């Protein structure tokens, strides 16, 4: 009886969160799934018709879909470890206490104050191949001018750099908070026992930072799978579809081509991809924890 009553109270307390989850997460996913099974009718203006899995079969036959999928995977394989690594490095640096720490902490925070659209436009001006600052600087070093965002070999990596410049300082805050939670006595004890810097990092910092790291890695992955603004503002998916990630392709299908069925099918594929990646990351981390 007591157990039953306490279970009810728990459900009651969870109810607002569960309702919000259902309304703002599960319901949109359900309508997206349903919408991906419809297509607009050409014969009846403005009417949508049920087409089953046709949007998906059309998608899987489209070479641009496969290219966009590859670009999305390639981007995420590089950007997620890179952002987390740089965020961790910045967090460790920000966690040090010596003269002038405040100044470089401020430097790390500056990108946070710049919105993604503004950052994208600033970088576009700096990376301009005709008269940008980046080419002027590398010319000084004797390196010839680079095409940057207008080259199919460089554009994606320029976007990785811009998103990392903006994102790393954001993720740093979570890791820095995690670092501050680690008791200083542990480091002191380790130092007395003769442990060096590297040993202290791998035996104390890394294990005790596992949870914030897992949070950052998973959230960062979800954010970067949906990365869209730099592609929208800087490259429009080009050159030669080299920055045409699935999210941008979905946007284009829905809002440029007016093909909402295709857009929703793309979003469902993206959702499956994000869930699979996040599940894999959870598994890897929990296996390590068990070991």
């Amino acid at each position: 009886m007591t157990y039953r009553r306490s279970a009810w109270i728990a459900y009651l307390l969870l109810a607002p969160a569960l309702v919000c989850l259902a309304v703002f997460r599960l319901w949109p996913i359900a309508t997206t799934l349903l919408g991906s099974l419809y297509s607009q009718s050409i014969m009846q203006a403005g009417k949508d018709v049920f087409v089953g899995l046709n949007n998906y079969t059309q998608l899987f036959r489209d070479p641009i879909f496969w290219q966009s999928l590859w670009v999305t995977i390639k981007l995420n394989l590089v950007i997620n470890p890179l952002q987390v690594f740089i965020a961790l490095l910045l967090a460790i640096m920000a966690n040090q206490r010596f003269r002038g720490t405040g100044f470089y902490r401020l430097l790390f925070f500056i990108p946070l104050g710049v919105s993604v659209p503004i950052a994208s436009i600033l970088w576009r001006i700096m990376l301009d191949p005709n008269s940008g600052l980046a080419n002027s600087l590398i010319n000084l070093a004797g390196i010839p001018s680079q095409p940057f965002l207008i080259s199919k070999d460089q554009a994606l990596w320029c976007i990785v750099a811009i998103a990392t410049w903006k994102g790393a300082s954001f993720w740093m805050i979570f890791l820095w908070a995690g670092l501050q939670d680690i008791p200083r006595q542990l480091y002191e004890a380790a130092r007395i026992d003769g442990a060096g810097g590297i040993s202290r990092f791998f035996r104390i910092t890394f294990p005790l930072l596992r949870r914030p790291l897992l949070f950052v890695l998973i959230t960062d992955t979800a954010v970067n799978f949906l990365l869209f603004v730099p592609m929208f503002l800087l490259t429009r998916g080009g050159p030669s579809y080299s920055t045409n990630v699935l999210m941008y392709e979905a946007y284009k299908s829905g809002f440029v081509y007016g093909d909402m069925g295709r857009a929703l099918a793309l979003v469902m594929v993206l959702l499956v991809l994000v869930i699979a990646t996040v599940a894999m990351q959870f598994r890897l981390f929990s296996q390590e924890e068990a070991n």
Partner: protein
Amino acid sequence: MTLSDNTWPANVKKAVAAFEAQNPDIKIQLDTYPFRDLFETIEVRMKAQDKDVDLISVDVPLVASYSVRGYLAPLDAYFSRDQIEKTWIKASWQAGMYNGHFMAAPQNTSTQFMFINRKLFRDAGIEPPKGLTGDQTVTYDQVAQIAANDRWTWEQVVDAAKKLTKTENGRTDVWGFAFDQVSRLYQLQCLGDSLGATLVGPDGLTAQGYFNSPGWLKAAQWYGDLFNKWKVSPKNVTPDESPSLFSGGKVAIFVGGEWNVGRFKEAGVDFEVAPIPYFKEGKPASGTGSWHVGISKNSQHQAEAAKFIQFLCASDAGATVWFEAQGQSPAMIALWSKISADPKFHAFPDDAYLLGDYEAQHTAVPRPLTPAYLQLEDIFASTYEDIRNGVDPKEALDGAAQRLDVFFAQFKR
């Protein structure tokens, strides 16, 4: 009442103010968006069946696309066939028809010119093409003579542009040539048209063999060479930025719309207006078609919206306000008659409208008729942007044609 409109808010406001003065019981609320966002906003708001939208600015090749998808309410109840034929030039009203219904009324049409910076030509010691300048007044016949006999070829343009481009220490200070709407279909269609090549098949839904035909391949190669081989035109410049390069004296030859005439005059550029060039082996071809206005199917104020369309597009007062504010070639027959009779339009730079009239009658080619125009336009722009950035034209056109046919197939089902 909301008017979804685009990049000319100040000009539309003048027309709205004139309408509201005549109709004090109707108030118009304008929603304006930058050009590149307008089409996406229309998609979002129409898909959401937004009842606040009453009037939509319709880029003319989208009449079919919007009609197919049920965005527009037919205007048949407000305009009789006789009235339509007597009010607008044929090409314009026909472009507003879909399946026998009048779906959108012509606001204006458009034409393309070649603008020459006379100072940069003088400095380089090059004789400019014969065109319209501030030195003389002209009649329509004289303008027609220039267009028929003195039109430059694209080959001549490249020869001059090479001599006009000034590069020092790897940095180009003056570019020989630039297009106005860089890499956009509206701007570049004249290249293929000049070589007799069409972008899509007669059914409007076939790209293979058309988008990548030998004619378009030659046009695409020429376009890519401007940036990569001859290096006479700047990369990474957007259509928004391109006209300011000409008005700032950084571009010597500029091919763009007639709406630039006023802008360049205001900027104090010493320029002349010449007919749009053509390929030596082909024939002259120029862009045409522009904005129409339609009523949203979800509008709760269709009668009031129709009244505004009558004023803006079909009344002497409204169309004159719009023409004087916007400066684009009118679609209304009565306005053309006024232009021909007014001495102001025989002196520079307003005599450019006479050249526009000649082009409309002799060289204008409308954009392709296809319900998949949104896809065609977007893929065209990304393909030609790739070619501009150095991708092999054949590879780019073949890939684009294949992709377009995937989209077109959906409309054939």
